[in-house]
């Protein structure tokens, strides 16, 4: 019996390499636990049959001494990454039966290192949402519950299947994507580590596109060391993505735990005015003190345009989405609804195939790009985007990292915010500026609030300085109080 709850990516790699258990034994434990966790609705598709074959091959490679870096380690993949021969739905009815003929660069790179695909994880439809409730296949449920509360909570979104699965120990690593906070916010809600790399660090090729100038793939894991290890194998130049950066991949694992003595941590003064829960404010102050104790210098920085990040985002992201999602027309792939003529076929397919949040965003995007409004909305938002970016450029002349909370609140209940789009959007107030500026940021579990729910601290670094996130992140990881709750109420 392998204790999956206390296992993480690094410990599993070591145990497999030291032959403490086999890839098949490990896989069977995960399959068993996933089967007992169906209440959480985290998987859209499982891949157990193929996985068993792959695990046998991994075991042979390990015996022959030919193990690759991630040999035999099971992984969960957000259902936005195309996987050859395995259904990829983006949690949308319109792609309900889509089976890609090709593999995304990220999943291919992980496969090439010997990772084994457990299955495809739920997300908000086309990654549009902050609660994983907009999935066409029903909401994903967080493994967390508040102390003395029976309320089912959201695992965050859009990568709620990924965060939930790692938090519930259904996989040691899940891939995810982040357009406005979709890796970091779910990580904060579930007590996991979520990394959004620099725009261009990880290839977007083969990932279902939402807003192409903001989308970036990254890992959700249990620890910082796991995150560093995962990024090492996910990052890198890809000629198939025209925005992929041709910059060397550092040995991120080496940065974990390095001293930060004498380095600088920036605190954005404008963020102190934001409407944050009291526990979150206090936790943020605590974290700043942890850095002081480690010998870092705390510096106040100014990000005056950050308050315009959410409105700019809700022009730019829907505009790009309305263009990207034009391809779902019921002709070349995906669900088709009938119509008397071609126009009706398109309209019926898209009207019935997309859910309400996706339709709303396509309509907003269409509106802000339409004749007469392009300059007033889209161009204006792009100009504000540059000002937001410039604020960060100035701040990083003074500091190594910037520290903020990841979210203004801890996890909320299923159904609580769904009817109020603006309230739902405000979840991303602390994460969205990072995407507009293309910066790397990480959410690290930083304690529990008074209800016993996880909180997250966000660290932001300059472009391609992911190493600093791992270096500084270690301080939060070792200074916080314990975050293991987990009554495992969902296990059947």
């Amino acid at each position, binding site marked *: 019996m392998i204790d999956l709850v206390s296992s993480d990516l690094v410990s599993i790699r070591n145990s497999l390499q030291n032959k403490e258990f086999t890839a098949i034994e490990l896989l069977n434990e995960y399959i068993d636990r996933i089967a007992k966790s169906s209440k959480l609705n985290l998987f859209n598709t499982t891949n157990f049959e193929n996985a068993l074959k792959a695990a046998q091959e991994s075991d042979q490679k390990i015996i022959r001494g030919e193990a690759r870096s991630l040999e035999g380690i099971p992984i969960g993949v957000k259902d936005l990454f195309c996987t050859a021969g395995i259904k990829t739905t983006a949690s949308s009815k319109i792609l309900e*039966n*889509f*089976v890609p*003929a*090709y593999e995304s660069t990220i999943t291919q790179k992980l496969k090439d290192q010997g990772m084994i695909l457990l299955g495809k994880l739920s997300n908000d439809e086309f990654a549009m949402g902050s609660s994983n409730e907009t999935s066409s296949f029903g909401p994903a449920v967080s493994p967390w519950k508040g102390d003395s509360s029976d309320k089912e909570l959201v695992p965050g979104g859009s990568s709620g299947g990924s965060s939930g699965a790692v938090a519930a120990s259904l996989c040691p690593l899940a891939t995810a994507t982040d357009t406005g906070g979709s890796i970091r916010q779910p990580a904060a809600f579930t007590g996991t580590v979520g990394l959004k790399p620099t*725009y261009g660090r990880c290839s977007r090729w083969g990932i279902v596109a939402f807003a192409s*100038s903001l989308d970036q793939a990254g890992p959700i894991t249990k620890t910082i060391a796991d995150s560093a290890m995962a990024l090492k194998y996910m990052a890198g130049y890809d000629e198939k993505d*025209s*925005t992929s950066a041709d910059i060397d991949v550092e040995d991120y694992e080496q940065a974990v735990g390095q001293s930060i003595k004498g380095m600088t941590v920036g605190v954005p003064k404008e963020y102190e005015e934001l409407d944050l829960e009291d526990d979150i404010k206090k936790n943020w102050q605590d974290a700043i003190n942890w850095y002081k104790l480690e010998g870092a210098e705390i510096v106040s920085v100014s990000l005056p*345009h950050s308050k*315009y990040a959410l*409105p*700019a985002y*809700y022009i730019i992201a829907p505009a790009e989405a*309305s263009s990207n999602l*034009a391809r779902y027309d019921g*002709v*070349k*792939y*995906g669900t*088709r609804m009938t119509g*008397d*003529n*071609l126009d*009706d*076929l*398109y*309209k*019926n397919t*898209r*009207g*019935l195939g*997309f859910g309400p949040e996706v*339709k*709303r965003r*396509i*309509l*907003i995007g*269409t*509106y802000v790009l*339409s004749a007469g*409004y392009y*300059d*007033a*909305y889209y*161009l*204006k*938002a*792009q*100009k*504000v*985007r*540059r000002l937001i*970016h410039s604020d960060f450029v100035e701040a990083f002349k003074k500091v190594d990292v910037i520290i903020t909370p990841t979210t203004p609140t801890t996890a909320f209940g299923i159904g609580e915010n769904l009817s109020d*789009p*603006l309230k739902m959007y405000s979840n991303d107030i602390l994460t969205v500026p990072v995407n507009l*500026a*293309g*910066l790397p940021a990480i959410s690290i579990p930083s304690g529990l609030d008074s209800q016993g729910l996880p909180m997250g601290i966000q660290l932001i670094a300059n*472009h391609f300085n992911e190493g600093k996130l791992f270096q500084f992140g270690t301080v939060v990881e070792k200074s916080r109080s314990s975050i293991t709750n987990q009554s495992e109420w969902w296990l059947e």
Partner: protein
Amino acid sequence: MVSKVNQMTITKDTIRKISNLAKISIADQEVEKLESEISSIIRWVEALNEVDTENVDPMSNSLTGALRMREDLVTDGNKVSDILSNSPVDDENFFVVPKVIE
């Protein structure tokens, strides 16, 4: 430009017009809800009008260099069956749609 934005209100007709542009059928009962939701979102994003963006260049992505170019060469191909494998209706290597020309 600013005054034009302020004059603009989203009506049911606006919703019908943009849903036609976006090729999305919207049921009559959905139009009213979308009108109110999209109106409030558009009013909210108009906070951007407070920002002075005179002489600011628009930023379309965060990359510093120009997009990479490559030679215009065929690098892939002969994947007809792969491409058609997800097609809802096809016939002899063609996607099939309702008749377009009367």
